């Protein structure tokens, strides 16, 4: 089938920062994303898990945005401004999408 090149950006960030991130994405012109729950994890600031979390009040989420390649840079800049001082991971993958007009 006909597919189109796009970028998949996966941002793992604290739940308390979720709306700040999505607000920043909206301001940067990103119109679509999905938010996945994260059950637990580990990083430089230790391990945590949703059930009985102690080391981080509210857990983390994963925000997945699929964008056209030319929109990647503004997206990354918006995301970076939010995650800069906070813990979290930004990971970009090349992908193909159906129905490119949506992105």
């Amino acid at each position, binding site marked *: 089938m006909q597919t189109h090149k796009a970028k998949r950006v996966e941002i793992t960030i604290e739940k308390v920062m979720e709306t700040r991130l999505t607000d920043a994405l909206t301001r940067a012109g990103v119109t679509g994303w999905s938010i996945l729950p994260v059950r637990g994890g580990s990083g430089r600031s230790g391990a945590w898990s949703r059930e*009985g979390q102690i080391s981080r009040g509210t857990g983390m989420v994963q925000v997945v945005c699929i964008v056209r390649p030319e929109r990647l840079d503004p997206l990354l800049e918006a995301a970076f401004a939010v995650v800069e001082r906070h813990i979290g991971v930004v990971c970009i993958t090349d992908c193909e999408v159906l129905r490119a007009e949506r992105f």
Partner: protein
Amino acid sequence: MLQLAVYNLLSPIVLSFVLGLGASLARSDLSIPEAAAKAMSIYLLFAIGFKGGVAVADHGLEARLVATVLAGVVLSFALPLLAFALLRGMSRLSVVDAAAVAGHYGSISIVTFVAGTSVLESAGLTSEGYLVAVAAAMEAPAILSALWLIARGGGVRQMDGDLWREILLNGSIVLLLGAFAIGAITGSEGLARVEAFLVSPFQGVLCLFLLDMGLIAGRGLREGARVLDRGAVLFGVLMPVLGASAGAMAALPLGLSTGGTMLLMTLSASASYIAVPAAMRVAVPEANPSVYLTLSLAITFPFNLTLGLPLYLAAAQWLTTG
């Protein structure tokens, strides 16, 4: 006093906490689903708020309500300064970490408050219903003090409008005050309709909730212990006693009942573990959450629950009736 302490230690509530703590320290996989824990905390907040409102409806609005709320706000602003000074003296925490911790001790833990009312009940005492509103009023001011301490120490301080709204309209404040208002409006007649849900099963739900708190505290002890030096641990049991003393000093001139005095002491002695951590993660991400969560949840909360509450009750009895 000793009798009270033993009676408290052997109550189902405290034993449930101990069970959770033990299970967690022994690394059992016992766990309460996040949604169930959240549902229980919503139940507890709604019930405690509602009952407080009904008490106010029954006894009429006292002038003392406003004065007590104000006293609570002042305590919430002031206690972080004391906590900060202590911490900088006693422990090796950085300015930012010490200020973040201090913010937690100015604010309150509603479960400690609930456990306090349950200790009062066992002792056959009541309290002014509006202390629920005082609890809500004490949640936020301490956050400002913490941010001020950090700014003063030269740290960054990012306090946007969103954060303001989040703090003042955070779920637990809204639910507590909202249920309080519902209770005040519907009074005893309203309570009668929901009694079998909000009153009778209350102690049992509290047991399961404290089981979960024990699980979390145990995990905190396991994982957070290494980030705390001896001075910080000592602070975790000293500060609640000092906070309770400050609470008592505020309660006496207000002329609160024995129960009311004990609860204001309890609020002052307790440390936040929901609202303040969330605010700190947003505004001061560089502060280490393990430090403040371990102190608040794994040191101070267990101390208050087991020894603190009977101590504060004994002191309140001595101060108000002596």
